[in-house]
């Protein structure tokens, strides 16, 4: 489906071709960034069909807003912003839904699966990270996800979340406290 010529293509070339309606070029963008989006969406929402849906929504939104992408920032930053916004919106929506229709606690709003082919040790690591993340307050969870799983610096995190660097730093330290107390119980 994806043309070989696009495998080594530059971002700007892919964006231009995708804007001209080239399916293969957009397919290459999806291939390049789907793992990054999966890390954001699945670590924040748990591993479920809904997370897959949100992942698809991220790329659909990207496709329709590609003409607004001016290339000043990296395409990955632009996609990450979309992914974070859609994921936080979904968390708010779920919170509203669960507060209206269910007595379930915060943690039960999410579910996650661990790959069957992984060894026991790898499963344990994955389970530990997912349990800890999903038990956190979403505003801290997003900061931890960006730093711990995506490897973004404080400055990059601030840019993506549209927050001042000082706010990110204070949230990081509060997130660390919350994470410590959660991990003690696990």
């Amino acid at each position, binding site marked *: 489906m994806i043309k070989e010529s696009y495998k080594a293509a530059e971002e700007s070339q892919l964006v231009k071709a995708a804007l001209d309606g080239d399916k293969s070029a957009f397919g290459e963008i*999806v291939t390049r960034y789907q793992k990054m989006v999966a890390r954001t969406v699945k670590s924040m929402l748990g591993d479920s069909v809904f997370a897959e849906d949100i992942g698809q929504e991220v790329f659909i939104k990207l496709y329709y807003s590609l003409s607004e992408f001016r290339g000043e920032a990296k395409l990955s930053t632009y996609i990450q912003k979309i992914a974070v916004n859609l994921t936080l919106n979904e968390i708010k929506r779920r919170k509203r839904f669960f507060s209206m229709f269910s007595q379930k606690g915060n943690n039960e709003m999410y579910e996650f699966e661990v790959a069957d082919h992984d060894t026991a040790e790898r499963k344990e690591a994955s389970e530990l990270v997912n349990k800890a993340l999903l038990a956190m307050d979403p505003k801290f969870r997003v900061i931890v996800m960006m730093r711990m799983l995506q490897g973004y610096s404080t400055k990059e995190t601030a840019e993506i979340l549209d927050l001042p660097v000082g706010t990110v730093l204070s949230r990081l330290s509060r997130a660390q406290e919350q994470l410590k107390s959660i991990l003690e119980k696990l």
Partner: protein
Amino acid sequence: MNSSEIKKLIISSLNEDSDPAEVSRKLEEEGVSYDFSKGFNEKVIDRIFSARLTVTREVEFVKSLNFAFYRIALTGVAAIVVLLISIFLMEGSISFNSFLGLSDSYDESIVCLLTGN
């Protein structure tokens, strides 16, 4: 890595002086990785391009509807103009009575017609 080492790594990842890229790489090595199911790429492409096709079809339908409406409206206007001209030619004026076909009738004859007296 055992679970206590993983816990330490997770907590240290939030230290200001830690290298976040290094931590994420180490976690991935330990099995903390995420991906979408097989065929994700195709599903996204299908959703985008089938939606575009639907939108195009809807736009085409609205365009044909507009075109049909204009044709019907123009035909109606033409029919009204022909009717007015024919009334003018037959009656010599376009009054309300002539439009209703009552130009030759007097009020009394209408009353007589309706009441029978």
